[in-house]
């Protein structure tokens, strides 16, 4: 009763690697129990191995870290800085953030990125939707509704990251997508029968057609649980508030399913990625039917027609002819596989709604009077 010495540690409670310190965590990957020091070591080394096995970087590369201020990108910035110094990658690391213009969410998370900039001594570039597209996400949502917010935001962010990187003269953006995210995407594509995406969803390096900028995911094999633990134990400064707009509903469902599966079988995240990596689509068989023969006669006619994609964009050429690099969007001049890039198609739809509100020669003062006048002039 009087003995206040620290509790004696049972042998079974010791770290399974160093056998000296008390284990503090259990790895979901292999159920190994590790102490803090060994966990840091294993965590960082695995990411280093992922980077070297995939030959992600070359000495002298300038690499932008897509930084949101959230846990994944904060840990990514911290780990890449550590590894760059430890293994002499010779990388020049830059933080690249996108300001979608979401009050109460992105403004707070950008404050975190600005602190990271100082903590990690990295230059920071912020690209805003407002300056790039003249729309903030808040304005888009008030115009197009909350349900499609993720669609707009996703398309616009993809291009914003590319443009931000191009502005900095960088052709490689790393993102904090982790193993859980990847398994989630595999599940989603599987559940939707989206086989074309399924095959590509586990590649570590991706590149949009026509884009000179490649993206990679050094956390491809890193569990979310370990990222959160790493951030927690290292006391990293990260931001964790959910976006104020509706999350992509189907992804949420896939995430819950995955979390429930993980609770029963922690290795399933790795297993799903492994399955995804080894899925190869059988080449499409050409069916020579009467229909096909009839179509063949029509090909001359077809070549003059433009193909309209479901999302409203216009394909430059028929599907058989592969996309050539260097096409530019007719509206914004940015690289695009279509005549008009996806961002411009979406923005054009939005502009049509906005244009009606600011009617020409409206000299009325701002405010209620203007609104009434505007409403009077509206015609459907």
């Amino acid at each position, binding site marked *: 009763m009087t003995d206040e010495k620290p509790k004696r540690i049972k042998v079974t*409670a010791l770290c399974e690697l160093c056998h000296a310190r*008390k*284990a*503090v*965590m*259990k790895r979901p990957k292999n159920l190994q*129990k590790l102490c803090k020091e060994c966990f840091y070591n294993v965590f960082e080394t695995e990411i280093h191995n992922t980077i070297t096995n995939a030959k992600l970087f070359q000495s002298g590369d300038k690499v932008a870290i897509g930084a*949101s201020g*959230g*846990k*994944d*990108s904060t840990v990514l910035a911290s780990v890449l800085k550590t590894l760059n110094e430890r293994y002499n990658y010779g990388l020049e690391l830059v933080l690249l953030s996108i300001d979608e213009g979401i009050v109460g969410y992105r403004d707070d998370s950008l404050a975190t990125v600005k602190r990271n900039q100082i903590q990690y001594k990295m230059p920071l570039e912020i690209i805003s939707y407002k300056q790039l597209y003249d729309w903030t996400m808040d304005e888009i949502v008030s115009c197009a509704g909350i349900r499609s917010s993720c669609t707009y935001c996703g398309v616009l962010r993809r291009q914003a990251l590319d443009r931000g990187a191009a502005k900095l003269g960088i052709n490689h953006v790393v993102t*904090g997508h*982790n193993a*859980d*995210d990847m398994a989630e995407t595999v599940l989603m594509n599987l559940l939707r029968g989206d086989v074309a995406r399924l095959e590509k969803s586990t590649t570590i390096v991706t590149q949009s057609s026509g884009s000179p900028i490649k993206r990679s995911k050094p956390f491809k094999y890193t569990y*979310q*649980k370990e*990222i*959160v*633990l790493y951030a*927690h*134990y290292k006391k990293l400064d990260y931001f*964790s*508030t*959910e*976006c104020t707009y509706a*999350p992509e509903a189907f992804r949420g469902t896939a*995430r*819950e399913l995955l*979390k*429930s599966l*993980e*609770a029963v079988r922690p290795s399933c995240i790795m297993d799903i990625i492994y399955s995804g990596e080894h899925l190869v689509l059988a080449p499409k068989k050409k069916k020579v039917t009467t229909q096909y023969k009839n179509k063949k006669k029509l090909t001359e006619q077809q070549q003059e027609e433009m193909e309209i994609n479901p999302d409203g964009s216009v394909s430059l050429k028929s599907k058989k002819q592969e996309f050539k690099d260097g096409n530019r969007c007719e509206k914004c001049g940015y690289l695009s596989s279509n005549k008009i890039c996806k961002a411009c198609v979406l923005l054009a739809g939005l502009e049509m709604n906005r244009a009606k509100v600011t009617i020409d020669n409206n000299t009325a003062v701002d405010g209620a009077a203007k609104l009434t006048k505007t409403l009077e002039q509206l015609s459907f």
Partner: protein
Amino acid sequence: MVIKVKVEFLGGLDIISSSVREHKCSIPLEEGEATMKDLIEYVTKNIITDAKDIPVFIEDDTVRPGILVLINDTDWELEGMEDYVLESGDVFTFTSTLHGG
């Protein structure tokens, strides 16, 4: 008799407790010992502000998958999970891993 412990909600999980991250709790103990199960029950009854948010924290009578639980900074999977016996001065950290990164 009561057991005094600290409960923390991190990683955005503080939305279930009116954005209060740290809670000092006194868990009533009549006899025997209190376990993690009692703490979870205490949290659902006394800390979660809106009963609608209980499913954010609980699923199938235990902490929802995707919420990381640390007992004195150690993964609760190493501490017997729901069967862990509470001691005065313990710190329980619940971190959501489900929030965007």
